[in-house]
């Protein structure tokens, strides 16, 4: 398990991390979400040892992480960076060797990953001759070629076309199934929802929510869709109920935890014939908006 315990870090006047604690189990994909400047990149850099946090510990399987443990981590920074004038096969192998892989094994891993990511015939090409999307694939190969135990990926989906998003999702699921601990950040919440079991939400350097989607849903108001003829204002006076929006499909209500849904149904029936009455499972986007707006 990859554990981050109580990270604090300050850049001058800016408090970037204010006690961040999170954990990624082996075989688990955890999505790190939060607005720009929430501290996601700083937290990931601290995990990778690229930045020395003011306070806090990073542990792997219970022990503090040092240089040798970090060699078994794979990293993809938010701002991608590789040698433009270097052949991609050599490049992937080079980074694998820097992570301690022997020359032959590194070359084989580079070939395997480039082939797996659809760049099999291009190992001799310079990075600069590749399209943006293909350069992203090389960056992913660099993060994976040394067979890491943990993956820290900062915005791995940014700038990918839908096809590449699918193939990256598949690779990540596979890696998770192989028992790796994967932490990745993303602004594409529907993607996080699709591939992650657990989510950690950062805001202003603090973890404001963490858990599975189901766990998060329980902590937040449920969404209820009700259509009562043409009437829309019947719900606005109910306690513990907020009208999220009203449209031709009726009203979408936010129902606080503990409010009796039958009372809402009775109020609706008073307003007119109830044509629809159904809870909708809140997506991560809805939950996220609620968390951030608090």
């Amino acid at each position, binding site marked *: 398990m990859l554990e981050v*315990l*109580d990270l604090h870090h300050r*850049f001058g006047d800016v408090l970037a991390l204010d006690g961040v604690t999170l954990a990624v189990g082996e075989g688990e994909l955890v999505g790190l979400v939060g607005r720009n400047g929430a501290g996601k990149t700083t937290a990931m*850099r*601290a995990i*990778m*040892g*690229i*930045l*020395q*946090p*003011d*306070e*806090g*510990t*990073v542990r792997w399987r219970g022990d*503090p*992480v*040092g*240089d*040798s*443990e*970090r*060699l078994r*981590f794979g*990293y993809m*920074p938010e*701002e*991608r*960076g*590789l*040698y*433009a*004038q*270097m052949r991609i096969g*050599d490049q992937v192998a*080079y*980074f694998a*060797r*820097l*992570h*301690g892989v022997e020359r032959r094994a590194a070359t084989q891993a580079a070939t395997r990953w480039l082939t797996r990511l659809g760049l099999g015939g291009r190992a001799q090409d310079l990075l600069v001759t590749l399209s943006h999307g293909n350069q992203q694939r090389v*960056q992913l190969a*660099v993060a994976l070629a040394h067979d890491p135990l943990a993956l820290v990926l900062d915005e791995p989906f940014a700038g990918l076309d839908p096809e590449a998003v699918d193939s990256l999702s598949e690779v990540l699921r596979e890696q998770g199934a192989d028992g790796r601990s994967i932490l990745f950040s993303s602004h594409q919440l529907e993607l996080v929802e699709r591939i992650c079991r657990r989510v950690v939400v950062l805001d202003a350097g603090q973890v404001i929510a963490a858990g599975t989607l189901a766990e998060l849903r329980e902590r937040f108001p449920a969404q209820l869709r009700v259509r009562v003829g043409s009437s829309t204002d019947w719900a606005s006076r109910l306690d513990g109920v907020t009208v999220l929006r009203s449209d031709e499909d009726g009203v979408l209500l936010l129902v606080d935890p503990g409010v009796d849904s039958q009372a809402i149904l009775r109020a609706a029936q008073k307003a007119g014939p109830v044509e629809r009455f159904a809870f909708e499972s809140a997506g991560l986007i809805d939950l996220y908006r609620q968390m951030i707006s608090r």
Partner: protein
Amino acid sequence: MSRTRTVRLVAAREITERLRSRTTRLVTVITALLVVGAVTIPGLIKESSKPTRIGLVGPAARALAPTLERGARAAKVEISLTEAPGEAQGRAELRKGELDVLLSLAAPSKTAKVQVEQALSTTIGALISATVEQARLDAVLARAGVPLSKVLPVLAAAPIAVAVLKPAAPHEDARIVAAIAAALLMYLSLTLYGTAVATGVAQEKTSRTAEVLLASVRPGQLLAGKVAGIGLTGLGQLAIAAGAGLIANALSQSAKIPASVWALLPSFLAFFLVGFVLYAFVLAAAGALVSRQEEVQSVLLPVAMPLVLGYLLVFAAVGSPNATWLRVASLLPPLSATLMPARIALGHIAWWELPLDALLMLASILAVARIASRIYARALLHSGPRVGWRVALRLPGHAERGHSGASVT
């Protein structure tokens, strides 16, 4: 993984990628060709210099031939003598370029007439006038009935004892040329490879490759590997150029460059190595300060100043190789790399100066490497506008994390 393995990997990548680049190969070939040219072209010019063709008109002129040839051999000038049937014809040959000089002398007592197309070289002029003078003296004495053999001892120059107070070192000219060439070559190669370090660092920073690298490599290892890789590439290129020069020198047989000058080669390469390491650390730190590739030139300039100064001082050194200020200046590490090899070439160096210089160089390399690595490690991940080195030293660091990891609880 051992730290040295990482440094070796970084250095090996620098070397492989540089050898692969067309620019490096081109620079290697051009440098080698320049050195070969410098070694052989003086020889070629000398070989192609033709003897001065002198046409002799009149019996008295023809009689001068043996004396002229003897005189030419003594003066180490090459001449070839032909007999011209008449002055008109000789002048025609002069105009056609078949002759260089036309010497007419009807009788020893008459005035000798020398004709050239454009200019008479001083050596040939002196040779001819001395020869004619001797012939006339000969004729006058013969007419007076005094045999020349009696007069000659009197005419011979009075013996002079010459004492040279400051003997020139052997091959003085070659040494001065070697000193200036060594300084120029050092200045050029340090600038070339130093710029390569700064550019390479700036590239890794601005392309954000540094962040990927730092996930597995410490900044110090990255810096050391880079400096070693580029330094060895430079040393290899210089060694190839020097080897090509040595072979050319041996083959051309012009023997223009004496062995005492070639003996300077190892010390030149050694000074390149220490000078490069000293400058490379500073330039790596400078390269890490930029935010855009285009800014590299402006951070290079202040670092390159002492190199330029050192090169310029060599010209003063040639004039007064024993001056105290020069001895002091050549011991200053930033100037030493260019000045000291030049002074070695000039051959006025005390036995204690080299060990002292080596000590000073190593000490300053250690000090500079420490500070430069700190600036490098801090500035490498700093995005945003260019930072000064003082600011860089205060940036949050990466380098000092211990082996125990990030636990600072």
